[in-house]
């Protein structure tokens, strides 16, 4: 896994937030977590990746951040449905960005949105994920990347 690959996924999210009314989005220093203890907030949008690398990439955020995100996009209806929608939007942006960056070599799935506990995200237990914190307004979300090289 190269930093370039990681960057492609993060850029998708950063770009998304740059288009909100509060453009001030910051990327925190990335770190590793064991997949036995995944980093998950209230809502998560997951995309599957295959190709030279395969695995999972997800965007996870607390409810409060997503509510503010909706508001900053001019959407005042902060229902559960809309929140799931916006998580999906962000995940879509990640996958869209990845598609355009990686081109044909990679296959990127359509995002799946989930609400709640980390048990619903299944990742290889023996692997580690990269967690890249995203700070926006007073809140933090994260892009979590768990990819392994297909050649090994």
């Amino acid at each position, binding site marked *: *896994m190269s930093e370039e690959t990681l960057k492609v996924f993060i850029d998708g999210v950063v770009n998304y937030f740059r288009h909100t009314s509060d453009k001030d989005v910051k990327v925190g220093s990335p770190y590793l977590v064991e997949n036995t203890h995944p980093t998950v907030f209230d809502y998560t949008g997951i995309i599957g990746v295959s190709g030279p690398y395969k695995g999972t990439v997800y965007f996870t955020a607390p409810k409060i951040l997503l509510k503010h995100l909706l508001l900053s996009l001019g959407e005042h209806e902060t229902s559960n449905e809309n929140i799931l929608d916006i998580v999906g939007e962000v995940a879509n942006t990640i996958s869209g960005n990845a598609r355009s960056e990686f081109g044909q070599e990679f296959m990127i799935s359509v995002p799946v949105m989930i609400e709640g506990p980390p048990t619903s995200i299944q990742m290889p237990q023996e692997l580690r994920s990269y967690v890249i914190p995203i700070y926006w307004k007073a809140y933090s979300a994260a892009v979590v990347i768990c990819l392994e090289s297909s050649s090994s």
Partner: protein
Amino acid sequence: MLHTLLGKYRNIVISIALFLLLDASVLLLNFYISFEIADDASGVNLSGRQRMLSQRMVKSLFDIEYSMENPIELERALKELNLTVNLFDTTLSAFDQGATVTGADGEPVKIQQVTSEKARVAVDNAKVIWKPYKVLLEDVQSDVDLFELGERMSAAISYASMNNLTLLKLMNDLTIELEKVASSKATRLRIIQTVGITLALVNFFIIMFHFLRQLKESDQKVESARKETIEILETVNEGLFLLDNNYVISSQYSSVLEEMFARKKIGGMTLEELLGEIVTNKDLETSKRFIALLFREDIKSNLISDLNPLRKIEVNIADSQGRFINKFFSFTFERVYEDNAIKDVLVTVNDITERVILERELALTKEQSERQIEVLTSILHANPELLQIYVKDVFNSLSEVNAILREPSKSDVALRRKLNDIHVFIHRIKGEAASLSLDSFEEIAHEFEQNIHEIRDKKEIGGDDFLPLVVRLEKLVKHAESVRTLTEKLASFASAAPSSSIRSINDGSWNHLDDLVQTVSERQEKKVSLVKSGLSEIDLSEELRSLINDIAIQGIRNSVVHGIESPDERLELNKGDAGRIDIRLARSSSSVLEFSIKDDGYGIDSDRIRAAAIKSGNWTEEQLDGFDQKRLVSLIFEPGFSTAKEHTRDAGGGVGMDVIKKRVNALRGKIRVQSRRGIGTKISVSIPFVESAEKAA
């Protein structure tokens, strides 16, 4: 085409032809008889006219007789007679021989010769009567004087009055007879029509009955064939479908196909729609080109099976969780012919994931063992004890690094501080790797360090600048894991076979302790010499040797890192630039083993212990205020009081003093720490020593 159509539907075609033929002949007959009846009708009319004409002739005769005096009237009456005679004569001979005569409306009418017996008799008799009658009547018409005319008239009238009724009756008979014939023909026509229609109906019912039954039977056959096909398609566990030359999938396909591809309603999809999202575009394009070859008649399909790009293809199917499920499919293609032309291609898809995974696992195992051998050769030269310590050290350092990364920080300043903190760890990992000649670790750590320098040089740092660091971090963790796995394996070999060469490094000389002193002091930029005594002179059980080894390593680390001062400091203190560590093993009595490790360093710094104790959160300042020097020093044996946590630069590498204390206690031994500020530190351990068979050796 036509032939096969006839073949299949011959019976129905023949039956329908028969039906049409029957209808046509009835129609023709109908026409024919209708014309005949029309002829007969005009015959009846004309014979009726004969009746009338016979009477008119008589009337004309009398007319002539009355008009004798008047030449104009006479001439008119004679002319009328002439007309009547001619008409009667031609009509009669027409009935006799068949000819065309002038009809009532002045148009020519064709009269058939009468054939029926009664009509014949009537005509023949009439002819007999008519012949002399006609002569007499013609005589009347000849241009003669009135007297002669009177003579001839009386002859004609007397013949007429004698035969007129007979002639009338004969003409009447003829008319009746002709009417009878006509009506019998009409009856016949009705019969023929009735019979024809009946036959046609019968034919129709036969067709209906027979062919409906046949249709029903063939429908049933088709239905049961269809059922069989569906049953096969539902139960077969291969993916089956037909593909036409536009790459469109047939409407029928095996149901397992939907499962395999996690798609519904596959029929009618193009190959592109089915495979587009699960194989690469390149594979899809190649496959389409390959399939196009299969539709070419001039190519033998057996001769291109090697070119099938989908013979073993990795597919990625997204599940409901958004994850890609990795599978391996094998596609085979067979031509389907219809009328000797390639109509479709039958595609068979098999899931060969298990087989491929098995193959891969075998290859992977092979590769892993090769890689392990590589790692093994890179670390083989390293002292196993030191290596274990080093790897442990690396893990601790890396988890520290990760913890630093994990702390939330957004500002440039905070990120720069992180960078510095991380650098300390990485630099040490690199330095130690270098001193142990662990090239692989050194290389990764060096890259890591380079990345840090690069980031530092940036004007402004953001979190994403740290991406290369976390990538290297993972690389280091992975490498450390593989080395650890290997050293554990080696250790298990060693304990299974204590006399193995690797273990024997420790057994005799204890030289690895010299290596350790050198490594750690180099890293700490200190000068230290190690003096060992008694280690090789006493035979120790495996348990004791391991314990003493661990105490020695822990003690050496503590002494070099915390105890012994830097060369400059030492010179200032008039101590000589090189520090000294003494390790001694002796029997103080026949049953007690004494082990000590002593340095001439700074002594234990109680202030630092105090600070670390507070930081650990296990003790409050008030508690610590109540501790005397001895109690304070004893804290180093407390669980959770790790030097690694205390001084980040000196990540604990040993098993930890608390563990050592427990092990000593378990052997009913005692552990003592003596320390004098500025003079040095001594750790003494005394352990009850049971004589063993080894002593004899």
